C-alpha cells in the first residue's frame, strides 16, 4: 500500500475531497478550458488579471483525484502573482510533476510521484499546461 499512498498522498486526497476555490465564476476577466478527451477530465479555470497580476482564481469541473488536487493547488498558489511570477511557478511545477525533479515546494511533492504511474503522466499537469498554453497565446 505504500506505493498507492505515495500517489494518493494525503495532500492529494484532501484536495480531491475538499478542493479549494472550487466554484464557477463567470464574473472574471479570464476563463480557460482544460480538457483531456482521452480520460474525460474537464475543468474550467477562472481568474482576473489586471496590470499583469492574477487574482480571484477558482475552478470547476470533473477530473481524477490527481488532476483535481493539482487544479486546487494551482488556484491557491497562483493567487496574487504577476504573470511572470506565475510562469516561473509553472516552470517549477513542470520540473517537479513532469520531469520528476526536486523543487523544494512541499505541496508539489506528491505530483512528482504521479507521473510515474501507468497512464497517469498527464493528470497532474492538465490545468497547469492549459494555463501555460493560454498565456502563451495572450502574448
Amino acid at each position: 500500500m505504500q506505493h498507492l499512498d505515495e500517489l494518493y498522498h494525503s495532500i492529494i486526497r484532501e484536495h480531491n475531497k475538499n478542493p479549494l476555490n472550487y466554484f464557477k465564476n463567470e464574473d472574471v476577466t479570464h476563463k480557460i478550458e482544460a480538457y483531456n478527451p482521452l480520460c474525460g477530465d474537464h475543468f474550467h479555470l477562472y481568474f482576473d488579471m489586471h496590470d499583469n497580476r492574477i487574482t480571484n482564481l477558482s475552478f470547476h469541473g470533473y477530473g481524477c483525484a490527481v488532476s483535481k488536487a493539482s487544479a486546487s493547488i494551482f488556484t491557491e498558489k497562483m493567487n496574487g502573482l504577476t504573470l511572470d511570477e506565475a510562469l516561473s511557478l509553472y516552470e517549477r511545477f513542470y520540473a517537479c510533476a513532469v520531469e520528476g525533479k526536486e523543487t523544494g515546494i512541499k505541496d508539489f511533492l506528491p505530483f512528482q510521484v504521479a507521473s510515474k504511474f501507468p497512464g497517469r503522466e498527464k493528470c497532474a499537469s492538465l490545468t497547469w499546461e492549459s494555463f501555460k498554453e493560454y498565456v502563451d497565446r495572450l502574448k
Partner: protein
Amino acid sequence: MITIEEIRKEFPLLEGLNQDGCKLVYLDSAATTQKPRQVIEQLTNYYTTTNANIHRGTYDLAEKATRDFEKTRTQIQQFIHAEKPEEIIFVSGTTEAVNLVADSYVEPILNAGNEIVVSAMEHHSNLVPWQQLCLRKNAKMQVLPMNEQGEIRLEKLADLLSGKTKLVAVSHISNALGTINPVKEIVSIAHEYGVPVLVDGAQNAGHHRTDVVDLDCDFYAFSGHKMYGPTGTGILYGKEKWLEQMRPYRYGGEMVKAVRFEKSSFKELPHKFEAGTPNIAGVAGLQAAVAYIENLGIEYISEHSYALLNYATEKFLQIRGITIIGQAASKSGIISLTAKDIHPHDMSTFLNEYGIAVRAGHHCSLPVMEFFKIPGTTRISFGIYNTTKEIDYLVQCIEKAIKYFA
C-alpha cells in the same frame, strides 16, 4: 471436460508472476486477449520450419507457406460459416477491415445527400471512417439510437432507412457496454430496404458463435488479437457479389495480374484485396487460435463468458455506490461501471496496485460516454481463462477502493 485450471495453464503470461510476486488478474480481454501456448508456439514453428514469401514460389518452402496460408483461409471460412474461401480477406485488424469497406465499397457509390446509418454505441473504428467519408462526400451519417439500458432501439431503424441509405454499420457486441445487438434483425430490416449491412464483430468472433450466412450480413469484420490470436491479423468477410464489384483497396505486388506502365489488371478474389506481403506468420498464429477455440468448443467458451458475466453482475449489484453502465437484456462478458464519484483512472490505478488489470476511460466510444453523461467507466472484460475467484478478489478490491477514496 477441461477445467479452468487446465485452461489457465495454457496461457503462459497468466502463469508468470509480476514484480511483487503476484499473479496477474487480467480483466481486459476486450482490449486484447492473452494468447495460449499453441498460438505462441505456432509463431516459432512457422519461423523455424516454413518461413518463405507466399504465392508464385517454385520451391518447397514457399509452396508449404502458401498452402498453409490458404488452408487458414478455408479454416476461417468454416469458422464463421461463410460460403466460400474467396469471401475471406486477410487484413491487419477490424479497423483496416472497416476502412477497406469504406474506401472500396461505399466511397464509389456514396453521393451527396446519401446516408450511412451507424448505431449510437459504435467503437471509433466503426464510426469515424463513416463520419469522415460522409463529411468528404456531403453525405449524412444517421445514428440509430439506444435506450438507457444500452440497447439499440430497433423500432427506429426503419425510419432511418430509405433509398438514400447506402450502408448500415453496426457492432455485433459493444465493447463499451457489452450489449449483444440483434444483428440478424437489423440485417433483415435493412435488406427490406435493399441496404447492405456491415457488422463489426471484433467482440463476438472467438467468443460466441459466428455464422455470417445465418446473420445474412454483407460484411463482417474482426481482429485476431481479440480472439486469442496474434496482433496484426484480422479478417474482412464480404459476400462474393459485393467483393466482386469492389475496386481494390491498395495497389502493389501479389494483387495484380498484368502490369504495363499504362495500365494494370487485377487478380481475382480474394487476392485482389491483398496487396503486398501479408502477415504470413500472424496468419499461421491465427490458424492456431481458431484451432484452439474449436478444440475447446465455441459453445463452451460462450457459456463461460455468460457465467462470469452473471456472477460478476450479481456481485456488483450488491456493492453500494456501483452503477453498471449498460444493462441490456442480452450481454457478453463485458461490464462497464462507475463507482461513486471515483474517477475510473483512480480506480484502475488502485486496482493495478493489487495486480488487477482493468481498463479505464471511454473505450474508444466517446459518444457512448456522452450519452450516459459520464466521462468514462471502469471496464471489466472476461476471457476464457478468468475465474469466479478472480471476480471475488476484484470485488474485494473495488470495495477497498471505495473506502480508500471516501
